[in-house]
C-alpha cells in the first residue's frame, strides 16, 4: 500500500505492455494478460471495420471488370459485324454486277474484246476495284480479255479456282498472286452460251479496295482488323501478324454464320479480345474469315488506371484505419489496465485496512485479557523488590535485584504493547478541533530537544506561511507526528539531518514532509512497514506497531501517507491531510 499513489500519478502510455503484476496485486486484477487483450481487440476491430471495405472493393472491381468486358465484347462485336457487312456487300455487289452482265449480254457480245473492255471501264466507273475481266470457256481457255495484263490465250484448265468455278454458279477465290504476281481476288460467274456450252465470266479485284474498306473500321491503332482464309493464312496485312499470306498460327475459329467474340482465357491485360465472322454471301460462301483483335489493356486502360487509383485510396485508408485502430486499442487497453490496477490497489488497501481493523479488535481483546495478569506480575515482582528494599535483607543480592528489574522491565514493555494495541481500537474515535500544525510540530520538537542536542542532529522546519490552521483531531495528529519524528530520530545517526516541511499546494489539503538522512528502508521492506508487528529495529527498540498505527491514524484523519526511501540515503514520509476534516456519520 506504500508508494501506490506514486504509481497512480505516473499514467504511463503503454504501461500495460510492460506491466508485471505485483504478486500481492495479482489476485485483485480482473484480467491477467493485457497484451493478448490488446492484440485481440486490434484484430477484432480491424476485421470488423476493414473486411466490409475490402469486400466492397473486391466486388466493385469484379463488377467493373465484368462490365468493361461486356462493353468490350459488345464493341468488338459491333465493329466485326459492321466490317463483315461491308466486306460481304463489297463482294456481293461485284458478284451481282457480273451476274447482271452475263444475264444481260449475249455471249458474242461478251467475247468481243473491245466490248469487254468497255464493260470493264463501266464497272470501274460504277463500282471500282475491278482490275480485269475475261471470258473463259469450259475448256479453260481464255476467250476474251480486257485488262492491263497480257494474258490472252492463257489456259486455266489446271488452275484450282477454274475447276471450282466451273462446278458452281458463283465463285469467290482466296487472295492469291497467280500468273501476274500481284495479290488479287477472283470472282467468277458461270453461265451458258446460246450453244449450250458453259462459260465463265471472271473478274479480278485488286485487294487494295477491300483493304481500304476494312481499314475504315479500324477505330484506333490498337484495333487489328484483317481477313484470313480457312487455313489461317492472312488475306490482308495485319498489324499483329504481319504481311499478307503470313500464316497466323491462330486456331481457325469454329464455323458460324453469325458474328462471334472470343474472350481470352488468360486474365492478363495484354491478351486480345477477338471478334470473328465467316464472310458468307447469299450466293456463295467466301473463303474469308474476318477477324477483329483488340488489346484489352489498351481498351481498358482508363478503367484499369481508375482501378489502380482506387486500390491506392483503399490501401491508404486501410493503413490509416489500422493506425487509428491500433492507437484506439492501445489507449483503451491502457486505460483499462490503469483502471484495473487502481481497482486492484483499492481492493488491496481495503483488504489491508479490514485486516488492520480485525487485528485491532483482536489485539484489543488480547490486550484486555493480558493486562490483568500483567498487573499482577507487576505488583508481585514489585512487592518482592520492595521486600528486599524495605526489610533491608539481602539488599546486596545484586542478582536477585537484577532479575526483578528484568521482570519489571518486561512487564513495562508488555504494558507498552497492550496500550498501543488498545490504541488500535481507540483510533476509530475522532474529535475534530482547529489545530495549528506549526505549533504542534514545535511542541513535539521541543520534546526531543535534549536528544537532538545529544546526537547533534540538525533539525530544520520549513512551514509555508500560507498554511492554514486545519480542522482535525489534535491527539491523533500529534501521535502521527510523534511516531514519525520518533522513527526519524531512531534512524538518524549522529550529525544527521531532519527536515520537516509543511506545504499548502492545493487549497483543500496540506502536506507534511518528514525527511531524514537516516539508514533508509530497503525496497523489500517498504511494502511491509505498515504491517502490524513488522519491525526491523533491534531488540527492545520497537513493538512493530508504530507505523501501522500511524497509517491507521492518517486514514482516520481522511489523509494519505506515502513513503519514499532509499537505503543509506534516507527516508521521506509524506502525510497529506485535508484542511477541513469531514465528520464521519458513524463516528
Amino acid at each position: 500500500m506504500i508508494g501506490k499513489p506514486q504509481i497512480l500519478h505516473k499514467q504511463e502510455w503503454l504501461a500495460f505492455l510492460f506491466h508485471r503484476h505485483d504478486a500481492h496485486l495479482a489476485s485483485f486484477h480482473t484480467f491477467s494478460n493485457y497484451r493478448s487483450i490488446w492484440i485481440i481487440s486490434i484484430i477484432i476491430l480491424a476485421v470488423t471495420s476493414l473486411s466490409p471495405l475490402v469486400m466492397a472493393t473486391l466486388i466493385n472491381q469484379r463488377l467493373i471488370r465484368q462490365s468493361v468486358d461486356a462493353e468490350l465484347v459488345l464493341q468488338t462485336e459491333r465493329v466485326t459485324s459492321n466490317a463483315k457487312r461491308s466486306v460481304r456487300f463489297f463482294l456481293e455487289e461485284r458478284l451481282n454486277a457480273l451476274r447482271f452482265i452475263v444475264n444481260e449480254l449475249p455471249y458474242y457480245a461478251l467475247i468481243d474484246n473491245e466490248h469487254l473492255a468497255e464493260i470493264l471501264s463501266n464497272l470501274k466507273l460504277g463500282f471500282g476495284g475491278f482490275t480485269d475481266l475475261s471470258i473463259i470457256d469450259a475448256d479453260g481457255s481464255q476467250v476474251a480479255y480486257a485488262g492491263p495484263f497480257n494474258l490472252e490465250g492463257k489456259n486455266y484448265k489446271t488452275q484450282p479456282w477454274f475447276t471450282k468455278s466451273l462446278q458452281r454458279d458463283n465463285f469467290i477465290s482466296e487472295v492469291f498472286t497467280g500468273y501476274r504476281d500481284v495479290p488479287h481476288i477472283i470472282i467468277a460467274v458461270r453461265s451458258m452460251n446460246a450453244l449450250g456450252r458453259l462459260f465463265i465470266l471472271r473478274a479480278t479485284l485488286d485487294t487494295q479496295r477491300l483493304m481500304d474498306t476494312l481499314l475504315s473500321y479500324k477505330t484506333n491503332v490498337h484495333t487489328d482488323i484483317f481477313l484470313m482464309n480457312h487455313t489461317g493464312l492472312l488475306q490482308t496485312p495485319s498489324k499483329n501478324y504481319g504481311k499478307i499470306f503470313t500464316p497466323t498460327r491462330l486456331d481457325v475459329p469454329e464455323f458460324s454464320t453469325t458474328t462471334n467474340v472470343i474472350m481470352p482465357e488468360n486474365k492478363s491485360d495484354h491478351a486480345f479480345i477477338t471478334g470473328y465472322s465467316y464472310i458468307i454471301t447469299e450466293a456463295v460462301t467466301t473463303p474469308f474469315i474476318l477477324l477483329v483483335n483488340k488489346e484489352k489493356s489498351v481498351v481498358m486502360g482508363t478503367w484499369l488506371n481508375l482501378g489502380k487509383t482506387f486500390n491506392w485510396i483503399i490501401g491508404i485508408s486501410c493503413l490509416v484505419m489500422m493506425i487509428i485502430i491500433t492507437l484506439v486499442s492501445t489507449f483503451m487497453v491502457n486505460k483499462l489496465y490503469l483502471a484495473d490496477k487502481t481497482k486492484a490497489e483499492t481492493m488491496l488497501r481495503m483488504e489491508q485496512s479490514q485486516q488492520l481493523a480485525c487485528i485491532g479488535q483482536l489485539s484489543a481483546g488480547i490486550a484486555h485479557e493480558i493486562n490483568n495478569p500483567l498487573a499482577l506480575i507487576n505488583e508481585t515482582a514489585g512487592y518482592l523488590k520492595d521486600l528486599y528494599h524495605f526489610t533491608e535483607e539481602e539488599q546486596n543480592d545484586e542478582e536477585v535485584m537484577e532479575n526483578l528489574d528484568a521482570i519489571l522491565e518486561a512487564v513495562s514493555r508488555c504494558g507498552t504493547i497492550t496500550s498501543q494495541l488498545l490504541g488500535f481500537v481507540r483510533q476509530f474515535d475522532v474529535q475534530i478541533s482547529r489545530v495549528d500544525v506549526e505549533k504542534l510540530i514545535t511542541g513535539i520538537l521541543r520534546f526531543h530537544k535534549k536528544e537532538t542536542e545529544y546526537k547533534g542532529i540538525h533539525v530544520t522546519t520549513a512551514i509555508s506561511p500560507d498554511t492554514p490552521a486545519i480542522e482535525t483531531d489534535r491527539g491523533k495528529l500529534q501521535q502521527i507526528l510523534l511516531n514519525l519524528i520518533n522513527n526519524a530520530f531512531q534512524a538518524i545517526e549522529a550529525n544527521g539531518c531532519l527536515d520537516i516541511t509543511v506545504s499548502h499546494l492545493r487549497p483543500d489539503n496540506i502536506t507534511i514532509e518528514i525527511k531524514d538522512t537516516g539508514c533508509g528502508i530497503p525496497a523489500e521492506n517498504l511494502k511491509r512497514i505498515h504491517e502490524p508487528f513488522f519491525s526491523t529495529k533491534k531488540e527492545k527498540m520497537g513493538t512493530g506497531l508504530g507505523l501501522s498505527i500511524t497509517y491507521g491514524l492518517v486514514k482516520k484523519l481522511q489523509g494519505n501517507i506515502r513513503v519514499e526511501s532509499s537505503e543509506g540515503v534516507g527516508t521521506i514520509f509524506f502525510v497529506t491531510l485535508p484542511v477541513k476534516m469531514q465528520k464521519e456519520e458513524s463516528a
Partner: protein
Amino acid sequence: MKQIDILIIDDEIKFADMLSRRLSLRAITCRACYDGQSGIQWVKKNPGAAALILLDLKLPDMYGTQVLAHIKQIDPGIPVFIITGHGTREDEKECLALGAVEFIHKPVSIEKITTLLNHARGEVQ
C-alpha cells in the same frame, strides 16, 4: 472513623492485596474491597475517610461506572482514579464525565500511584 490514604476497589484479590502490601511498605494505608457493593458501603460508612480511590471497571456484581456514580453521589469531592485492564474509549469518556480524575491502564507502576496520592494530598491540604 479511621482515616486512610487509598481505597482499592478491585475484584483481582491478589492484585489488590499485593498493591496494598506494597503501599503499606511505603507507609501508605490502604483498604481493599473486592466488589462494587462493599466498596460503596465502605464509602458510605466512612465518608471523607479515603484520600483517593482506585477503582476497577470490571467487578463481579456491578460495572465500575455504576460504582463511580454511587461514590460520587455520596462524596463528590473524593478523587477517583480508574485503574483497569479493560476499558474502551466509551468507558473512559463516561468515567471522566462522571467525575473520575484519570483513566489509567494496568499495569501501573507503584511510583505513579504514590505520585497520584501526593497530588491528592497536596490538593486536600
